[in-house]
């Protein structure tokens, strides 16, 4: 018998299992299982786990170190941290509460301009994104005043996820975007909650003064 060299990549027949090199099965299965855990397993567990964090009367949510609003009691906090509960990393700049299919989102970030300019910026960004979550602002905006006397603008919008309102405020270099959207039919108590939460948006300094008063 001549001393033939095994060709590169040749797998001896006794090492094959259903045609696959037996030696590669265990590492392949381990990596595939880990990838499946990351891609499907943990996300499925996250989706199946409900977030149960109902708003209590008197709760205030703070965004960054600049803005607060008072979520309506009974709504569920999906994102954001109550004032006074943030750890060393501080408060995030977005908060979201949901109730009866309605989602109320507040985002605070740096912005130099007027509320009307902020609304235009949001409209332009949304138009350019062309994503499923993009919103179409319907008609003209109108002015809106909060209970602390801050002036903003408000407009109706429609999106693939429903219809709603979008409000824009600017507090001393901080822009605030507030969206509330849900199904076409919303009951009266929920509508009242939305208006109350919109009216409660204020800069942190005003919130501190109101608390002191």
């Amino acid at each position, binding site marked *: 018998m001549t001393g033939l060299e095994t060709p*590169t*990549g040749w*797998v001896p027949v006794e090492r*094959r299992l259903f*045609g*696959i*090199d037996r*030696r*590669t*099965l265990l*590492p*392949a*299965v*381990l*990596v*595939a299982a*880990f*990838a499946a*855990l*990351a*891609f499907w397993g*943990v*996300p499925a*567990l*996250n989706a199946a*786990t*409900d*977030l*149960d*964090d109902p708003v209590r009367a008197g709760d205030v949510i703070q965004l960054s170190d600049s803005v607060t609003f008072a979520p309506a009691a009974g709504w569920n*906090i999906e*994102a*954001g*941290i109550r004032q006074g*509960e*943030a*750890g*060393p*990393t*501080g*408060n*995030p700049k977005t908060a979201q509460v949901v109730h009866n299919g309605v989602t109320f989102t507040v985002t605070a*970030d*740096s*912005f*130099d301009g007027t509320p009307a300019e*902020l609304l235009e*910026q*949001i409209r332009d*960004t949304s138009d*350019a*994104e*062309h*994503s499923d979550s993009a919103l179409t602002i319907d008609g003209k905006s109108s002015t809106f005043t909060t209970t602390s006397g801050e002036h903003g603008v408000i407009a109706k919008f429609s999106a693939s996820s429903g219809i709603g309102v979008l409000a824009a405020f600017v507090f001393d270099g901080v*822009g605030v*975007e507030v969206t509330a959207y849900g199904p076409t039919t919303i009951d009266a108590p929920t509508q009242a909650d939305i208006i109350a939460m919109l009216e409660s948006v204020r800069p942190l300094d005003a919130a501190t003064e109101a608390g002191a008063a």
Partner: protein
Amino acid sequence: MSATTPSQQGRTAAVEAREAVIAASGWGNRVSWLQPRNACLWVYVVLVGYGLYYTVTLVRAETPLYAPALGLSALIFAGYTIPFWWFTTRIDRYSRQPLSVVVAAFVYGGFAATWTIALHGNSAIIGLYSKWFGASFAQDWGAGLAAPFFEELGKGAGVLLLLFIASSVIRTAYDGFIVGAFVGLGFEIIEDTLYALNSAPDGFGTDQIGNSLHTVVLRLATGFTSHIAYAAIFGAGVVFIVGTVAQRRRPGLGLALCATAMVLHFVWDSTAALSGGNGFAVLFMMIGCVVLTLVAVVSVFRLTVGAERHAMRTVLTPEVESGILTDEELDALAGDGRARRRYRRHGHGHRDRARRHHRLEAGHDLADELARSGGHDSDRVLFARSELERLLVQ
């Protein structure tokens, strides 16, 4: 029947040792990527394939609005890749990994470990932390308790797959260290580009270039002592755990190295939470983490490079005996940077020092050709020897 002389006996032993170390180390072997019976290759293809698909969809979604930020950050990080690619290739100076393997490692790190594994796993686990322990806990500790698990294991999974795809060339813990570094480099580049892109909408998208550039600068400053280093340490650990024909299994050491990479990553991602938000303490911790990471990666380098240097010495020892190389040159070629500098500095004048530098490069070429030919005198080996003789007489 004639007896061999002592010098002939010695030469035969040295040549046999050379052939044995070439066979064991895989130096000079080629990698075939056509391996339909290799389950690891199929898993690699699926993971990278999804990652590439996700990249295309992300670019298509972001380009209408954030093309300038995406383009600029991608350009900057592409440029950032070059020196790190050069450096990592440079330290792989003994039995160098084939180009196809390092490219495969980079691609896996950039597209599979990021999009397929880390993105989904991190988001989901941080969501769970928020639901189980509260939003504040998730805000402070989410990244530190998610990324070390999904990102380091994700990158390490790439080293494991490549270990079984390219088993003919990935043989030592140092090979795992190098392959891991390239996986980490790919991960770093793509993740940094994503972070820069995610910064573009800040300020309601009014200054996408400014916002993304700010992130680019931050990521550039800390890139080397994060994913590249962590993955290199983890990669060496993977090979120690698995073992190969050239690497004795040391599962305890391997697990310790993997854990080290994960702990370093945890500390880096949790500096704000660990320091209680104190600005000075955060800076101190970040600097401390960078220093610790550098110490760890240099330590692992020193721990694993010995086998490579031994291989280089064994391959070239017969060349010293036949007068092609000197003992001093062998010590330089099989030694560290200090040994090489010492050899070059012993030259008299600039031209002699340049000649010594060229002799070392030519000696390395000879070692590569000997490995490629399995220790036999191929045409390329003979030519490489002639180059050394040419450099001797100049």
